[in-house]
């Protein structure tokens, strides 16, 4: 490990890989330090399916056009204005050239997956998903002579007088050793893998959250940098959480654990009470709020109940639903009071009205005189067998990050550090201060990974 590196890249996900490839293409000697073992390399990026890409005409698998203004409007809508306009527009504009660049690196795209037609214009899907993308970049790195260390957790980024000198890395859990480089790119994601930190930030209930992605994003580098005076962006208490199947693994359950049944169901808590309008809007627009809603319920759990009329209206679930011929029986199997559940369902059924049911658009089929109301898709739950799914909050990412300049340089109160760059989730809070726009995480990582790689390479040459 005495080899002299030009650039150390901390992390092994999309942002890290884009930085490493970009820098190595200029001839810089690059090392990737990935805390996960080889199998789990690629962080949350390995769970992704697409990235959101601006385009002024048909581009690869993307149809029509998706221009800067529309893209920015979409971002404003989800973030409720919590975005840095300059950085956001830069990201959006650069996304267009990312797609052909990615293809040149060996990333392959496919038309939008069945059941996601609504994204075929805005999001380019990776053939084989994020793991295939990550594989393509690792192969590219190998071809470019980038050194990759797995099981290599960076414990400390050494900054002296505003200047990076080396990182301390624990290899395979051993005592930290030192790796020196002329510049460093930090791309180690958020801190959602550290449940203690998550509990301190969010509150004790976070102990019951499931983490949808990698357990290796524990915010070690983020905290180390903040402790050394790096400026932060993003709400330190918040995380993006969706409602996922309650039976999912604690970590790394990935995309398959999502449940799309909520709009066609009623959702009750452990006490058998409903607590929110399940039919407020089409699911893609509401699925992100349900993590929070369930998180606010006793023991952070909810139960989504449908009848056989609705059983096939949504994407199949990874685990089969709990099935029963009576509502009481279903309640018992789910571990809640069957009588109470039956009363809640009866109340709901009594509040349903006649009307046209339309599963794919807001149909206005609302309950009458029920609190909370269900404002769309309110059909009585009366046709056995009945189906139930448990719901728990699943954390996608945390918002707290490092403040960077448009050239991806990490900031302290005294200004930017001259040889420290950051990319990906670790700095996404500048652009995505709140909410989430499908496919934007990979866009931020690709755009800023490339910027960081380019800037770091220019610095060391």
């Amino acid at each position, binding site marked *: 490990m005495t080899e002299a590196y030009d650039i150390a890249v901390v992390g092994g996900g999309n942002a890290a890989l884009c930085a490493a490839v970009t820098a190595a293409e200029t001839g810089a000697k690059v090392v990737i330090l990935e805390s996960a073992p080889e*199998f789990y390399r690629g962080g949350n990026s*390995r*769970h992704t*399916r697409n990235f959101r890409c601006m385009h002024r005409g048909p581009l690869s698998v993307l149809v029509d056009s998706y221009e800067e203004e529309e893209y920015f409007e979409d971002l404003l809508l989800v973030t409720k204005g919590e975005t840095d306009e300059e950085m956001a527009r830069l990201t959006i504009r650069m996304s267009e050239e990312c797609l052909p660049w990615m293809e040149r690196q060996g990333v*392959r795209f*496919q*038309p939008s*997956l*069945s*059941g996601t037609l609504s994204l075929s214009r805005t999001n380019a899907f*990776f*053939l*084989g*998903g*994020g*793991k*295939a993308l990550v*594989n393509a970049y*690792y*192969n590219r790195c190998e071809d470019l002579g980038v050194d990759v260390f797995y099981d290599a957790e960076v414990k400390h980024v050494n900054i002296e007088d505003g200047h990076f000198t080396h990182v301390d890395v624990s290899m395979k859990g051993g005592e930290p050793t030192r790796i020196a480089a002329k510049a460093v790119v930090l791309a180690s994601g958020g801190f959602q893998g550290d449940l203690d930190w998550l509990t301190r930030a969010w509150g004790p209930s976070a102990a019951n959250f499931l983490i949808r992605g990698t357990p290796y994003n524990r915010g070690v580098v983020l905290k180390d940098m903040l402790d050394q005076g790096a400026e932060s962006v993003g709400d330190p208490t918040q995380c993006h959480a969706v409602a996922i199947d309650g039976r999912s*693994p604690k970590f*790394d359950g*990935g*995309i*398959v654990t*999502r449940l799309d049944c909520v709009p066609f169901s009623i959702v009750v808590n452990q006490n058998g009470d409903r607590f929110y309008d399940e039919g407020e809007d089409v699911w893609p627009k509401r699925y992100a709020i349900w993590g929070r809603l369930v998180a606010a319920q006793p023991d952070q759990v909810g139960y989504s109940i449908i009848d056989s009329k609705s059983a*096939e209206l949504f*994407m*199949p*679930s*990874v685990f*089969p639903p709990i099935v029963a011929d009576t509502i009481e029986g279903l309640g018992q199997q789910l571990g809640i009071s069957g009588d109470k559940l039956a009363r809640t369902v009866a109340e709901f059924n009594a509040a349903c009205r006649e009307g046209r049911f339309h599963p794919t658009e807001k149909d206005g089929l609302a309950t009458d005189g029920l609190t909370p109301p269900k404002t769309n898709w309110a059909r009585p739950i009366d046709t056995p067998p009945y189906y139930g799914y448990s719901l728990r909050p699943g954390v996608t990412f945390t918002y707290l990050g490092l403040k960077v300049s448009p050239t991806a340089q990490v900031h302290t109160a005294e200004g930017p550090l001259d040889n420290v760059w950051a990319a990906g989730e670790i700095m996404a809070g500048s652009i995505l201060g709140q909410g989430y726009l499908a496919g934007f995480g990979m866009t931020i990582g690709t755009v800023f990974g490339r910027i960081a790689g380019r800037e770091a390479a220019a610095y060391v040459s």
Partner: protein
Amino acid sequence: MSLDALARSATDEARRQMEICNACRYCEGFCSVFPAMTRHRSFTDADMTHLANLCHNCRGCYYSCQFTEPHEFNLNVPAALGEVRQLSWERLAWPGAFSRLFHENGVALAAALAVGLAVMFAALQALRPESGEGFYAYLSHGAMIAIFTPAFFLPLAAVGVALRRYWREVEGQRVTLGQIVEATRSAGTMRNLDGGQGQGCNFEKGDRYSNARRVFHQLTLYGFLMCFAATSVATVMHYVFAWEAPYGFFTPPKLFGVPGGIILCVGTAGLAWLKTKADPKLGIARVWGGEMAFVALLFFVSATGLALYAVTGTAAVPALLAIHLGAVLAFFLVIPYSKMTHGFFRFAALVREAQLSRR
């Protein structure tokens, strides 16, 4: 465990995996299996047999999967579908007694070869004709026909029975010309091994794509078809045009047979070589030896055929003739009970998929 019990548990495991994939669908663009999968919410045994026979073991969906071992979902779709597919060939083979004989067992295959050789040597000894030209100087045309007609048609009949069983199991309908054309196009280009975009499969280079297996497989397929064409055309020439062997180089049997034999040799050698580089746990590990022996047998058939042509007119002919014909005999006999059956089942699966995807 009985074959049926094995098949049940393999099917249950593959079904578990398909249910996870159906909630994910990231691999939709690799092959025909995933689009076929999305037609269902739950999978009957027949659905699983169909999906398994559609899978060409390109392995793209393994290296792209975020849920393979050590993840607790423990997905290995190529192996899970592979096991169901393999068991379907064994289960549906007729007569059942032979069904597993040559799949797993390279030694049994070698024994078949030995029997083939022994039969041919004995035949050459016993049935040496008084006169005759070319090979017929050693074994009369009549004797050859007497041995090879049943040796060819009986195995084909056995395959026919197995296919009928298969077709019934997957609830196949009446076949149209259009469906045959579609299946032929797919098989002719090995579309399901091209990774969906022509980049190839993930057989011998891990998570990097490569077209090597597709190329060697097609060399094997086309080489084989050319050799088969050589024999067929010779039969027609013999019976229809009374133009009897031996044939010179610039005659249809040789123009098909010699390049076909060379191509078949290259293809099978390539397939065997690739097999040594691929990860056995993404295939059906227990049939590795049997498959290897089968590829070796095909190579041996074509290599001895070429050698026989090369030694024309020398004293080596009788021995080589016995060896080559013995190998051909062994090959014919194992068709329904070895890797060779895959071609028939695969084609049936492609036809069935043409029926289902049209709707």
